[in-house]
């Protein structure tokens, strides 16, 4: 279809593009490119104050000049741990539950609805809820553990620097698990039934059926889920902020790139770190880590898209 051909009317379709294009360019694209630009300056963000070109020195601070480099590498190592936990708890457990859903004849829709339900809750609200439940003295989790005789397991979940990060991630998985379950389930349902039935006739038990037939078919979807775990780990902020504070306690044991970035941008790191340029540099480093993986994920997604 062609736009009208008379005079200026030919360009009238731009009027229909404008309401999408303007907010997108101003509030999404411009800030993205401006991050890159700002990262080369030293500026406190106050209008009229000097904005000094410092080249790559903001990057140098994060990469190898303590104290910022200490915080950066610590947060990055926590992000790697989180990614590992998500691979097992989100993609792994999600795939397992999805497979269980394909094996039951009744109640599948019911379980699916329940598993997905927490996904509709705000992640911040989820954090507030669980911070009450995990309270060491009055929380329902420890009360339940004591009631069933597992007193030894009633721990200060969020107060222990070894337990805090896995606990926060477990809460995050409680919130998000419905998504990998549904993606894996949709992929499994695309496996042709007659192939599975033929294998069953040939005497393959259901585990063999899963490993030899289903798993190879759904592998691209699982790789896509893993890529989402990766970018998801770098997007985590609220759950840590709400449950452990901006300082990501105890003793920064739950500090992630997301919380470190928030402190760099909005204070909490001392006067020397309140620079907008320093925060922007951290944002650019994160872009460089996340965007390639997202691109790969989008490619895989496009090539093997699953109908949900």
């Amino acid at each position, binding site marked *: *279809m062609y736009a009208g051909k008379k005079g200026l009317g030919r360009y009238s379709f731009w009027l229909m593009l404008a309401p999408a294009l303007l907010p997108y360019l101003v*509030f999404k694209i411009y800030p993205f490119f*401006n991050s890159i630009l700002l990262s080369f300056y030293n500026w406190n963000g106050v209008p009229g104050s000097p904005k000094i070109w410092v080249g790559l020195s903001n990057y140098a601070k994060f990469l190898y000049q303590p104290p910022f480099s200490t915080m950066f590498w610590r947060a990055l190592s926590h992000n790697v741990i989180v990614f590992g936990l998500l691979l097992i708890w989100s993609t792994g457990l999600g795939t397992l539950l999805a497979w269980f859903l394909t094996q039951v004849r009744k109640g599948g829709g019911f379980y699916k609805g329940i*598993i997905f339900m927490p996904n509709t809750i705000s992640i911040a609200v989820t954090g507030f*809820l669980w911070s*009450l439940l995990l309270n060491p003295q009055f929380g329902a989790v420890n009360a339940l553990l004591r009631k069933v005789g597992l007193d030894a397991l009633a721990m200060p979940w969020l107060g222990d620097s070894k337990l805090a990060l896995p606990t926060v991630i477990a809460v995050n998985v409680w919130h998000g698990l419905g998504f990998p379950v549904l993606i894996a389930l949709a992929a499994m349902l695309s496996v042709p039934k007659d192939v599975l039935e033929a294998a069953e006739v040939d005497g393959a038990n259901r585990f063999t059926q899963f490993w030899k037939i289903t798993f190879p078919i759904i592998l691209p979807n699982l790789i896509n889920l893993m890529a989402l775990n990766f970018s998801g780990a770098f997007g985590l902020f609220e759950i840590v902020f709400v449950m452990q504070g901006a300082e990501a306690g105890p003793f920064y044991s739950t500090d992630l790139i997301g919380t470190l970035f928030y402190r760099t941008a909005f204070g909490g790191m001392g006067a020397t770190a309140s620079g*907008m340029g320093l925060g922007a540099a951290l944002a650019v480093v994160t872009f460089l880590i*996340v965007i390639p993986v997202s691109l790969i994920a989008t490619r895989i997604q496009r090539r093997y898209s699953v109908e949900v």
Partner: protein
Amino acid sequence: MVWRNPRLKWAAIGFHAVLIIYALIVMFPLLTMLLGSVKSTRDLFVNPFGWPEQFVWANYVRAWTEANFAIYFKNSLYVTVVSTTSIIFASSMAAFVLARIKFKANAWVHGLFIAGLVVPSRLAIIPLFLLVRDLGLMNKHLALILIYTGGAMPFAIFLLTTFFRQVPNELAEAATVEGAGTWTIYWRIMLPLVRPALATVAIFEALHAWNDFFFPLVFLRSNKLMTVPVGLSVFFGEYATDWSTLFAALTISILPVIVLFIFMSRQFIAGLTQGAVK
């Protein structure tokens, strides 16, 4: 598959058992919250997850009025409705143009929108903060509405363009012969045909606006403008020891969405799974 022998029947029971255990893990916090919201604080500390000694509805009254939840709720509703409406209009018009009108820059503009799929919005918060401040939008709902609208375009346009392209050409051609202009074709013919896709976008983006914590945290300062999730954080600071009111406030935050989910779970699931694979 038919369970021919007892061994298989036991396996089926095992599968159900695991699924029921996980369903309980999902439900336990939500039920604890619901029951906690109608207990007295003393009852709650003695008996954290059992049935309430007696039902204390006053917790809800306190959360709704004293703790400003009536205001937070209204603010969330306003931001959600306005941003979802503007997202639907802006993205459907743009997607219609990109899917159906030939012009030189078409592929380029479409590519520009799609590229946004891999750009995480929140990482650009520093320039965004300076921009909002310089535009005088600090502490205004409009800042959130514009950010949500701009941020939603890649996914919404990506999804809607695909749907608009599937509409058979004959329909639009017939309308052109009848003398319908571009606007009429969009509004009268195309839009009604892509309603399911519009619903997907609307549910995903409405939920995102309703649940968002990050942008209100950065841009809203005054208590009377806060949306539910950030209002909840103020409330958790002020009422830290009043657990039963905290549970009532949590229930007010969570229950409306859960109830909608129960009635429209298919649309929710479609919206959220397609929305999150960005």
